[in-house]
């Protein structure tokens, strides 16, 4: 009988940029047990949000530097629901454009990091070069590359004029070729395919039971995408015909990455459709009073379903804000993914859930 050895990975480790502790039990080279531990990066953001609800737009962006606008949108939408505010259509379209631009750069970032995790540094460079196209577009729109500060309760703070629309369209055209290259590499390149296919399998039932979200759930056949909900529409997704959830069946690491690749194509189409739907009009509505009541808000962030709960009692300070981030939901499914895998496969399997510990710990 093989002896069980404990291998601690993190909270500080060269492979993991952010602090999470994964306590592996291995027998020879095979993982037989895993206990994940989070909380090393807790910043008390939910406590800080028991503050002026108008300032929380900016604070919610600071939960994460990758999906900052998605956090801000989820928060803003929750407050708007409490206060019964309907933002103008143009503002909803601008929010959607930024949501999807952020999805492109987030997916390119994690595809690059996955390439790095398997020693394919050239692909990392290529992905991050392409990601720069999006970073420049968001800088053009908002003046910022990371925290855009575009949302405000009742609408958005900056408009996208016709000149910017043309620049965005021209930048998006560059992705036709870039995505085609990347897609071909991810489907056919032996380095990529052999290292990722068949490892870290999460079955549909496991994904459902453990509450997986985003590309992690959809790669396992769980058709769960908040953008497709008609009961609780958010941003301008209900207006878009080009949206179609990407769902795959195999549930392995390769499928999770392919899910993101295919979403890049869909996202590019959605941004173009949004740009075409922009009609002249206001970008904000007047907001009076303070939130009095409670509401849930869900958005489909790049990593999956992001949930905000907001409760106010008619005062400037909120009573409670609860944030459930996608990685928080995707850490429990890591356990079945990693059980039985080789130690050498741990980095690509962990990277493929696109972990964001900054979000998770808040």
């Amino acid at each position, binding site marked *: 009988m093989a002896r069980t050895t404990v291998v601690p990975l993190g909270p500080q480790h060269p492979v993991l940029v952010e602090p999470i502790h994964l306590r592996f039990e291995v027998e020879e080279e095979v993982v037989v047990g895993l206990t994940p531990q*989070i909380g090393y990066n*807790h910043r008390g953001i*939910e406590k800080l949000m028991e503050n002026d609800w108008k300032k929380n737009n900016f604070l919610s962006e600071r939960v994460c530097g990758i999906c900052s606008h998605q956090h801000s949108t989820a928060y803003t939408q929750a407050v708007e629901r409490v206060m019964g505010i309907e933002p103008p259509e143009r503002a909803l379209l601008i929010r959607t454009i930024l949501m999807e631009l952020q999805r492109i750069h987030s997916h390119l970032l994690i595809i690059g990091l996955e390439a790095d995790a398997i020693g394919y540094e050239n692909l990392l460079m290529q992905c991050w070069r392409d990601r720069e196209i999006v970073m420049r577009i968001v800088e053009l729109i908002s003046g910022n590359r990371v925290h855009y500060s575009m949302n405000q309760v009742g609408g958005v703070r900056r408009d996208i004029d016709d000149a910017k629309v043309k620049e965005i369209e021209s930048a998006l055209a560059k992705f036709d070729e870039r995505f085609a290259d990347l897609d071909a590499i991810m489907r056919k390149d032996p380095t990529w395919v052999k290292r990722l296919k068949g490892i870290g399998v999460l079955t549909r039932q496991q994904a459902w039971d453990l*509450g997986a979200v985003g590309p992690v759930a959809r790669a396992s056949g769980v058709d769960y995408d908040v953008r497709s909900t008609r009961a609780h529409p958010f941003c301008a997704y209900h207006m878009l015909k080009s949206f179609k959830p990407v769902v795959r069946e195999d549930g392995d690491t390769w499928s999770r990455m392919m899910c993101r690749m295919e979403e890049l194509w869909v996202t590019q189409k959605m941004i173009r459709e949004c740009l075409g739907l922009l009609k002249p009009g206001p970008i904000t509505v007047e907001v009076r009073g303070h939130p009095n009541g409670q509401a*849930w808000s869900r958005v489909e962030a790049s990593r999956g379903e992001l*949930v905000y*709960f907001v409760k106010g009692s008619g005062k400037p300070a909120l*009573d409670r804000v609860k944030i459930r981030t996608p990685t*928080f939901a995707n850490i429990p499914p890591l356990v079945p993914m990693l059980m039985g895998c080789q130690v050498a496969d741990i980095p690509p399997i962990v990277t493929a859930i696109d972990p964001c510990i900054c979000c998770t710990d808040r």
Partner: protein
Amino acid sequence: MADDAVKATIATWRGEIEGMKKAGARFVVLAAVDHLDDIEVIYLFHHEGALKEVKLMVPYEADIPSITDLFPSAGFVEREMVDLFGAKVPGAAPFLELTEGSGIVAPLRKKRPGAAAAAAPAPAPAPAPKQGVS
């Protein structure tokens, strides 16, 4: 906003959660809300495109049984509730590493356990009598 909300008591609560499981609902998250002496736990489920809440209000001293036997995905958020509110969830250990050595206890409670004695301000020293300058 949730489409449906059920206010449960500790006696009816388990039945409501089991009903969600039988219906094939998906556990989304729970949000704990502080009401000074009581804690309100709002469980959010997603079922057939609709959001459903099960609300439970109990005193802080009462046990809140875990639902991880029915919804394993609730484990992390239950443990977080122990950390941030000092709620009692049998079997759920704190895990945020907040409390060890930091003196922080239940930071999201408005009236924190043991805070009254600790927070009582020390009497201010009597001002020194003004010295006249002659």
